[in-house]
């Protein structure tokens, strides 16, 4: 009979050691624990410094990538409460339009309009979504997909906020350093903040609502209040991206509610691995630069882009981050089946 093998996955010794006091026993263990956190932070913080090497164009791509990463993080936070959102553009557009309006009509400086746009946009979205929070799964997704489209047509038809033209010649951000570092810091704060939040008791409740909302209700917890809070927090991240990009482009218009801002975060999350926050961020940092790099192909760009996306999703259905995480913590070996 032929010898058959089976794949076995085991935790690395260093992972087990790092779970208790031995983590402090040597530099190797400390490095093992800190590397996954320090490396991305260091990388993101050095990227803006490479302006001389990669050129201004790629620095601009970095800012856009950060905006999409923020939207992807906000998608993931909503998904961890069980709200599958197809309308991140709603957050982006609300933040963008409110910021643009404040700057255009009252000439407020950017350091006032961005915070106001962020909080106001998030509040607006939360109130807009309040009546549909009791919907689940696909039904919630459909509503969130429609809302940005609805708002676009509303602005177009009523000719408020500049109507078709949008609001242009808004005040610019001070300089390229400010643009890059604020965007990068926002991503880092959201990434680590959300990861911390979901591991707290508060986050346990959020995850509980995703897994089993009846059981959470019988635990005397008002699930709609928690869902609304989660939407607000996710809205802050999304609306900040919109508010920031408004001043970055010095323009706000219909494209703020574009389908791109809904679909890109979603694909980032799926590609990177949903439910980890790091995954969607990684996904955004792959997808957006990739799409820029493919511009050389002209019209065929979308074809290549889609093909790469399909290969990735089929090859790594769990998501890139889950794959890396597993390789980091575990090793595989073949065991003879007797």
């Amino acid at each position, binding site marked *: 009979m032929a010898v058959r093998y089976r794949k076995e996955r085991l935790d690395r010794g260093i992972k087990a050691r790092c779970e208790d006091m031995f983590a402090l026993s040597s530099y190797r263990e400390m490095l093992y624990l800190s590397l996954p956190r320090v490396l991305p932070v260091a990388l993101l913080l050095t990227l803006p410094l490479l302006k001389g090497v990669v050129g201004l164009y790629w620095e601009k791509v970095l800012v856009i990538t950060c905006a999409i990463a923020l939207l992807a993080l906000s998608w993931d936070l909503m998904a961890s409460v069980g709200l599958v959102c197809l309308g991140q553009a709603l957050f982006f557009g609300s933040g963008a339009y409110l910021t643009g309006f404040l700057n255009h009509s009252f000439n407020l400086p950017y350091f006032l309009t961005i915070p106001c746009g962020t909080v106001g946009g998030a509040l607006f979205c939360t109130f807009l979504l309040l009546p549909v929070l009791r919907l689940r799964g696909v039904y919630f997704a459909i509503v969130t997909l429609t809302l940005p489209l609805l708002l676009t047509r509303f602005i177009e038809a009523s000719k408020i906020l500049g109507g078709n033209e949008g609001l242009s010649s808004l005040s610019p951000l001070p300089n390229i350093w400010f643009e890059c570092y604020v965007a990068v810091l926002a991503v880092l704060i959201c990434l680590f903040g959300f990861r911390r939040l979901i591991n707290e*008791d508060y986050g346990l409740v959020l995850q*509980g609502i995703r897994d089993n909302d009846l059981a959470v209700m019988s635990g*005397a917890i008002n699930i709609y209040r928690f869902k609304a809070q989660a939407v607000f927090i996710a809205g802050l991240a999304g609306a900040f991206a919109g508010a920031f990009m408004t001043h970055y482009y010095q323009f706000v218009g219909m494209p703020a509610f574009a389908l791109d801002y809904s679909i890109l975060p979603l694909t980032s999350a799926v590609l990177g691995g949903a439910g980890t926050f790091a995954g969607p961020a990684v996904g955004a940092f792959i997808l957006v630069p990739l799409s820029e790099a493919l511009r050389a192909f002209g019209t065929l760009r979308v074809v290549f882009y889609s093909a790469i996306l399909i290969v990735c999703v089929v090859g790594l259905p769990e998501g890139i981050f889950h794959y890396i995480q597993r390789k980091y913590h575990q090793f595989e070996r073949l065991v003879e089946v007797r």
Partner: protein
Amino acid sequence: MEDQIILKVEAVSKSFGGLLAVDKVSFHVEKGELLGIIGPNGSGKTTLVNLITGFVRPDSGKVFFRGSDITGKKPYSVAALGVARTFQMVKPFYQLPAFKNLIIPLYSPRVKKLRGGKYGERDDVAIDLLEEVGFERDSFVPYKVASSLPHGYLKRLELARCLALRSELLILDELFSGMSMSEVASTLPIIERLNGEGLTIIMVEHRLRELFRVADRVLALNFGSKIADGSAHEVMESEAVKAAYLGSEAES
């Protein structure tokens, strides 16, 4: 004696489509009492529990808890007032360790007000609660992921989740279904002790032998209507109950 009555159900009815699941059922529960609810399959026991705890709105009738009207209130509001329930089909958070399951009710405003408690302290309270329902404290059982626990433990986890709420009324919806004889034998004393400590309990149960041993009073349902209400002995002797369970002579 009005203040002795903790729960009063007045002629509640509920129909699903054409099926009358609960038909003008009235009863009351006194403080510290252990009321059993029995009835054949489909007689409306679980619907009655859902009506009391707010998971289903009654078509007509009223439910009072400690004198205040809780008819049609949301499940979390009813739970926040102090009515805890278990589910017949266990509903744990499968991906979480057993003790983390209890963090969710412990995080509720009701419990925060009653207990206080900060992060970390809640974990200790959770382990204490699990020990109370028979999880071995010094073993790895409380730390195991819920999906890897046997059914009997999951049922007791449901019980612990209710105890976490420090409720005044505990409704057990077929706690013993799917439990082995030894698991039932070890859980029954827990319920007796809780009742002895003054907790009011409603037990919906199919295991009549165990129920009759602990229940102060038993209510029998059939086709959504109340057919008997009295001591265990009275209900057992009732002709209507015998007919419901075994079929009446005319039918056989």
